[in-house]
């Protein structure tokens, strides 16, 4: 075969190709990504859409876990203080039931228990971040003074709960309504405390004893409610671990789909630059020669 006098277009094509490789390598190094547009790798690009959304989901679940954890922990510590208060009330009531108290003593005890009742109501009205912890889904102050009520307080909240998503198929109840904890008809904390006040004021030992045992029962009841929060906390903590693992997995997937290894990119760039220089050098050698040199006289 004789030499092709049409070498020039071939050389220019080679040069263009090495330029394209150089541009690609430059872009990879500067963005750190080897998929910049969908055509770079269509499947990876489609998978990346999923990855982006799932990563967003995991981020949001993590935020929610933290948010609910914080609420649960606040509620839990409040209940701790309520338990302390109730324990104190039980011991005051026990003292009041022993039959050796004077009327004055009993009045003092009643006043102290009344004080405890106020403290517990304040606790029940705690708000965090502008939202009441124990009002259900109502925005009204959970407990307000009401002289017509046997406990002296009326519940303005509702019985509804909010659930917060912390996983694709996992929601956690974020609140327990006050009506369940503090003014539960079967075991009312407020009710038992105000009954104890009344009993102490009446001075009747056996009434005081009954009332004290009701407060004790309420104390156990609160203890059980704490367990609900404790379980929620455990569930949230383990979900947090799952989410952390998901984050690692998704981030690895992202890297595999579109990431470019920095060292490889830098090597590619050097190689592409070398190729480009070589192509340029080769072109420089060939072009100035007269094309006639390639023509052989007909034999």
């Amino acid at each position, binding site marked *: 075969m004789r030499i092709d006098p049409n070498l020039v277009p071939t050389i220019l094509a080679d040069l263009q190709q090495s330029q394209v490789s150089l541009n690609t390598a430059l872009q990879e190094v500067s963005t750190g990504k080897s998929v910049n547009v969908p055509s770079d790798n269509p499947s990876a*690009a489609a998978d990346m859409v999923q990855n982006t959304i799932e990563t967003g989901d995991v981020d949001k679940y993590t*935020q929610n876990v933290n948010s609910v954890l914080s609420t649960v922990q606040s509620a839990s510590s409040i209940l701790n203080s309520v338990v302390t208060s109730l324990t104190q009330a039980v011991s005051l009531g026990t003292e009041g039931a022993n039959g050796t108290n004077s009327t004055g003593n009993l009045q003092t005890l009643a006043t102290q228990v009344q004080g405890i009742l106020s403290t517990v109501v304040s606790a029940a009205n705690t708000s965090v*971040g502008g939202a009441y912890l124990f*009002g259900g889904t109502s925005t009204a102050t959970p407990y307000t003074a009401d002289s017509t009520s046997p406990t002296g307080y009326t519940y303005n909240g509702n019985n509804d709960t909010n659930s*917060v998503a912390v996983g694709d198929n996992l929601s956690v109840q974020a609140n327990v309504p006050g009506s369940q904890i503090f003014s539960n008809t079967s075991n009312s904390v407020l009710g038992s405390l105000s009954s104890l006040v009344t009993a102490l004021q009446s001075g009747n030992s056996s009434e005081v004893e009954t009332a004290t045992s009701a407060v004790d029962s309420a104390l156990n009841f609160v203890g059980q409610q704490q367990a609900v929060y404790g379980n929620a906390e455990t569930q949230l903590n383990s979900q947090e671990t799952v989410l952390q693992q998901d984050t690692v997995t998704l981030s690895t997937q992202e890297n595999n789909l579109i990431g470019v290894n920095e060292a490889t990119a830098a090597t590619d760039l050097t190689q592409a630059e070398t190729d480009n220089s070589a192509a340029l050098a080769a072109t420089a050698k060939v072009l100035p020669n007269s094309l006639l040199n390639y*023509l052989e006289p*007909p034999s």
Partner: protein
Amino acid sequence: MGGLNTSLLIGVQALDANQGALDATSNNIANVNTPGYTREVAQFTENGENQSGDDVSGGGVTLTGLQSIRDELLNIQIQQQTSLQNSANTQSSSLQQVQTFFTTSGDDIASGLTALSSSLAQLSASPGSASAQQSVLSSGQNLADAFNTTAQGLSAAQLDADQQVPQTVTQINSLTEQIAQLNTQLGQVPASNDGGTTQDQLDQLVQQLSGLTGISITQTNDGETITTAGGTPLVMGGQSFNLQTTTGTNGFQQVLDSNGNNITSSIQGGTLGGAIDIRDQVIPGFQSQLNTLASQFGTAFNAAQAKGYDSTGNAGGDFFSIPSNANDAAAGMSVAITSPSQVAISSDGSGGSNGNVANLSAVLTNTLPSGQTPADAYASLVFQVGNATSNASTQSTALGQNLTQLTTQQGAVSAVDINEETTNLMRFQAAYEAASRIVSTVQVLDNAALNMGSSTSF
């Protein structure tokens, strides 16, 4: 009869033949810088023997055109591949433009869906928070903007393709007129002078024409008859037939033949075919999917709003406003609510309830009437856009190299020996087959790395 006359005759023929060879050589050198100039090779074959009485004399020599037939075949292939490549190039450019709207940039639909999802989650944990409510409104706005921008990007690419139509038709008409003139010129050339230069110019113009639109060529006694791939006449001998353009009912340029018939859908190949295909088939395919997603998503989100109550205690109203014309769904989608308090957070009307947020979030994770979740539907679209773009540029590159190969064959002076050339071609065929098997093997390796069980494999 033999004798002196025959000998003289043979001598003259030989001189003619040699003169022809010399002419060919000087033509070669004079035309070396003219693109498309085909090298001519003088070939000598034996004439048949003259029988005259009892004497048998050698028949002398004449030129044959086997070489030019082979080159003609290469010409035809080069034309066809040029049509294909120009079409692929046109589509590739357009799609490169389109796919930028589908890359993750923060303003794209995937980012919009993600942000809306996140803002809803935040709202779920803090239903009373004014900033969380505002966040949902803003993300909804960003998502609608993303749909608008993507739709506009597709329309713009369509318009660009549309503008190429009248431009290309003008170029086509100019070429066909010149080709017709050359056909006439060639008709006036006596047979003993071969019209080498004119023929080469003609071949050049025809190749340019093939780059603009796919063509079909037949040789007749009056010269070349050229039609479009769909059969519409462009040139018949010395006469050319102009194509026309006119605005169609959809606002796009239609291509008409010289009788006024609409031949737009029959145009294949070349820049014109590529532009029409992009404008009338490829982009509308993407637009349809985008509009369906916008419409179904907006409708589902509005339905979720309606299940709940907003912060003022009213039943939830439409969050998104979707144009009634299905073709405008993505371009015209907007947010209908004006205040964060209109986000339907509550499930029972109480101020602190987050019960309806789960319904709003569910729109992002449940399947739409199309059968796919919003994320799946969008991911699908991204894949199609990326795949179409990748295919167009793959074809363009491969066709470019194929064309280089054909041009190399055309330019090289091949062995006169047909047997040698055929053997080489058959070796090439065997090599292509072996290469194809390797291509298949490499495809098998596509997901191999995912199975290697490393800590990083997913």
